[in-house]
């Protein structure tokens, strides 16, 4: 899965490199038109492309597999035979999901940066505000964006963990998690439901653009972190209750 994610920025970079026409400014994903001028934009463009679907897809697969996958393989029983306790198993499984969130975003960012450096010239980066920052600071900002997206995905990971405790069919848990993430994004685009928007876990997913302003607008980072931690706490507690009450038969 990480390889598939790594392929996305490379695909973008190669496609832009091969196309003879320069991209029209303002069309397509953010910064697509600037890639030819500065390779460092590949990483950001790739992250923008991956956030709505590819990244939630992989997180859904990993998080949905956590408990249900073990139950499906019949290994959950053996895991619980060890004197570690169910809470600890749940925590370890969630830690694994978080580790995958970090790895997934880091993979996209790193392969994007690499593809950009190889295929395009590299120079100082223009921010959304029109200010220009050095290569070093832009790398720092790309890392911040990766961190932002990792935090964004942690809430979805907790939801996947919760769903995973309800079923023994990992495919069902994965599908449900992914469907939830898509549903949440669809609801976020309906203006009639704007009272609901601040509570959707995907509401701040694209808010990382605030990290590309000068000075950085930290409010969206804070609000996102707060919202995701609320989802983690609620879903984690519910997963704990469900998992401790679960009759592990397989």
């Amino acid at each position, binding site marked *: 899965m990480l390889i598939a994610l790594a392929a996305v920025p490379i695909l973008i970079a190669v496609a832009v490199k091969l196309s003879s026409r320069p991209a029209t*400014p*303002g*069309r397509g994903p*953010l910064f697509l*038109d*600037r890639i030819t*001028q500065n390779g460092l934009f590949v990483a950001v463009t790739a992250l*923008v492309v991956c956030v709505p679907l590819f990244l939630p897809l992989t997180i859904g697969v990993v998080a949905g597999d956590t408990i249900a996958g073990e139950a499906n393989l019949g290994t959950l029983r053996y895991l619980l035979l060890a004197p570690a306790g169910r809470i600890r198993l749940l925590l370890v499984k969630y830690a694994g999901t978080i580790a995958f969130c970090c790895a997934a975003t880091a993979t996209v960012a790193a392969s994007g940066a690499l593809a950009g450096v190889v295929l395009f010239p590299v*120079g*100082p980066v*223009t921010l*959304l*505000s*029109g*200010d*220009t920052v050095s290569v070093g600071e832009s790398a720092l900002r790309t890392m911040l964006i990766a961190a932002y997206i990792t935090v964004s995905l942690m809430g979805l990971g907790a939801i996947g963990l919760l769903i995973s405790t309800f079923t023994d069919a990992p495919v069902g848990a994965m599908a449900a998690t992914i469907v939830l993430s898509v549903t949440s994004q669809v609801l976020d685009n309906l*203006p009639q439901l704007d009272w609901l928007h601040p509570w959707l876990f995907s509401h701040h997913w*694209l808010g990382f*653009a*605030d990290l590309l*302003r*000068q*000075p950085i*607008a930290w*409010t969206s980072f804070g609000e996102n972190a707060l919202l995701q931690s*609320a989802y983690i*706490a*609620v879903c984690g*507690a*519910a997963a*704990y*209750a469900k998992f*401790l*009450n679960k009759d592990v038969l397989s």
Partner: protein
Amino acid sequence: MTRARQRWLPALLISLVFGMAVLFGAVQAGATGSLPPKTADEVLAMIAHTQVRELSGTLEQTAELGLPGITAAGPGVAPGAVSAVEFLTGSHTARVYVDGPSKARLQILDRMAERDLVLNGGDAWFYNSSDNSATHWSIPPSLMTAPTESREAAPPRPGLPTPEALASRFLAAIDASTEVSVGGSSSVAGRSAYRLLLNPRSAATLVDSVAIDVDSQTGLPLGVEVRANGQSEPAYALAYTRLDLAAPDASLFDFVPPQGATVNEKVVPASPVPSRPLPAPSGPADQPHPGQPHDGATVIGSGWDAVISLPAGTAPAGLLTSPQLAQALQPVSGGHALTTSLISVLLLDDGRIYAGLVPVERLESAALQSNVPAE
């Protein structure tokens, strides 16, 4: 079984805690401290004597005028055409930085994009990130030095659409047709404020009331809220959500157009500086106000129910053909009308335009009356 149920307790408790936190937060945000009572005249004097020359803050603007949603925040939005129409719908967030009378920066935070206006001495820059274009105005030094005396008393940046600028527009229009009162205290951007209420005495206007939140410490207007008759939520609101009265970082005002951006050079002609060249998106304030007629415009009546009329040919070219406007227009006898909960605009087929903070029927009768002497 009881043990099994107990295990759901943490999940329930955590949900409850978050629910309480949200409720408590909402209650606290609405809470207002007690301020020493002041009369309307005292609050007006506070506004007039405000000494704030430096600030950085975040502005939140919402408009509920009953217009269909229009998104004009795309590429190709020229600075002059930062359409007033766009700022009449939905909500916008912007950051404002002001340092003295000659340095200011406005950042309109769009989704995944940003539009910037930077004023630094004799230079004004507009940058649009969605099509990577920049516009540069050189302001002749004669214009920069001439109005300094009058600026002493004026707000720090007349060109920027801050609550202060909007409030001064409304306050400048106060006359016998307005009832001014102090409506208790409020809390804006974490600061306690006096709420100054302007109520039109006329029943012919669409405006129900205008509320201006004035900072209790500095006298700086922190928010403006315009309510329309027969609408529960404010028709137009502009307020700080965050405000810091320290001087912003000086490097913010040094704008250099990024590499690869298309740059348009323009020179401001030697005419009065005010907001003309600046994309001042301030909603209703863009509406010609009584007592401030534009070129060739005549004002019919006075006070809140005044109607402004523009002769044929004075409408900005391309305005009437813009598809965004065409969406919102409704056909009426002899032309088209734009009706919102706050403003009505009547565009006659012969090119004349009537506008006002009044129902469209009043515009039609005004148009009829001015027809009579012409014939």
